[in-house]
């Protein structure tokens, strides 16, 4: 019995080894014989890309992006992660145009402390799953579910969950690849210009009284920001203040005026969310 089972293991290993070696050798020879000359620029550009294969460009991985750039199907600035596209442009022999750097902004300020839960959720640690269970545990149906699906998909380690169950973006590490934007079932995260620091941390489109009932820091559409903004950059639509980033000058008057402390600027945003 002992000897028999031993020989079965040995034979199994030997047969698989021989097969693997023979096939490996065959494929190695075939790959030499059938090698396809590819454009050397593809390899050069692939080496310049981040190599995270995040898919933020819409192509299957960095290799796919490099092939698309060389084929002319994608612009040299196609990679949303790279800050400087000029080395790629140099390889392709074209001028690179600077693009505005975008980063992910979480537009909800209502964490565990500010926004109550309707029930205790014991399900899968995934926002989409929580959302499909009666619309999520949070009383505010627009707010962050706080299970960190965005944090899990971030390939650059630029997000973490705060103690208050809200995702915090490390703006220096964030590359604007947009994976967290896609992961959020409530479309709370948007790509926002890096140098525009003022954001409305609310997505609630309900009327003021209803917002007050579900969140201490929600936008009640009082329009104080709209009236006080010197550049008219904060229109209120659907009971929600919305900043137009092109018009915002980072003056932070709206941050001072907002009675609910919904709008946050450069310094206060970190303190409130983190």
């Amino acid at each position, binding site marked *: 019995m002992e000897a028999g089972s031993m020989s*079965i293991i040995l034979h*199994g290993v030997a*047969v*698989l080894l021989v*097969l*693997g070696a023979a096939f490996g050798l*065959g494929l190695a020879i075939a790959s030499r014989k*059938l090698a396809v000359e590819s454009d050397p620029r593809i390899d050069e550009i692939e080496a310049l890309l981040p190599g995270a294969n995040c898919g933020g460009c819409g192509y*299957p991985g960095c290799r796919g992006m490099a092939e698309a750039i060389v084929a002319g199907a994608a612009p040299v600035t196609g990679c949303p992660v790279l800050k400087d596209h000029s080395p790629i442009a140099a390889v392709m022999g074209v001028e690179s145009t600077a693009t505005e750097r975008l980063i992910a902004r979480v537009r909800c300020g209502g964490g565990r402390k500010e926004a109550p839960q309707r029930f205790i959720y014991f399900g899968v640690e995934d926002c989409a799953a929580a959302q499909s269970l009666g619309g999520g545990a949070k009383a505010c149906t627009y707010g962050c579910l706080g299970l960190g699906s965005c944090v899990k998909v971030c390939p650059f380690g630029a997000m973490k969950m705060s103690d208050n169950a809200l995702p915090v973006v490390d703006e220096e590490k964030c590359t604007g690849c947009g994976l967290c934007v896609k992961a959020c079932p409530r479309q709370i995260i948007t790509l926002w210009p890096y140098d525009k620091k003022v954001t409305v941390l609310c997505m609630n489109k309900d009327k003021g009284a209803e917002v007050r009932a579900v969140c201490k820091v929600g936008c009640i559409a009082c329009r104080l920001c709209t009236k006080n903004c010197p550049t008219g950059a904060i229109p209120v639509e659907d009971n929600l203040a919305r900043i137009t980033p092109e018009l915002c000058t980072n003056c932070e008057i709206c941050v001072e005026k907002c009675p609910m402390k919904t709008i946050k600027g450069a310094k206060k945003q970190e303190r409130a969310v983190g």
Partner: protein
Amino acid sequence: MTEYLLIVLSAIFINNFIVARFLGICPFLGVSKQVETATGMGMAVTFVMALASGITYWLQKVLVMFNIEFLQTITFILVIAVLVQFVEMVIKKSSPVLYQALGIYLPLITTNCAVLGVTIINVTENYNFLQSVVNGIGGALGFSLLLILFAGIRERLAFAPLPKALEGIPIALITAGLVSMAFLGFSGFNLEALLGF
């Protein structure tokens, strides 16, 4: 000779991999948008299935000899994976256009259960070497026939005035069901009696 004819006809019509055995559904839905790519895919699958049938026949002999038949699945998959890799290289070299069109579905032949299916059916049916290869080719021809037929239908469907909700995959699935039902007409045919052997 008649024996091989029976195996081929049976593999194409009566025990068709897609509509009777429900194997290889993924490429059936994935690569059936254009007749041209469907033909290319059919040829690639035919090549892989014929070679895999032949090689696994001898491999099974080796496995039986050493009393290690339990390694059947892993060794067969190994053979199929190597063949697919080889086919991929050949297609990339000979026809970059076809390589582009087949895209991800080319490496996915590895996981096309019809290929593993045919090799295991060969073993369970106790086919000899030639019968195995013929069954592989027949099965692949049946797969290709269905793929090309279906692609032809879908090419026309692309221009059909459909309700919005049915466009794309929904109508493709309904069509696949109808095609499968049409092929149900072949099931239970007694080929020997029919052809007078």
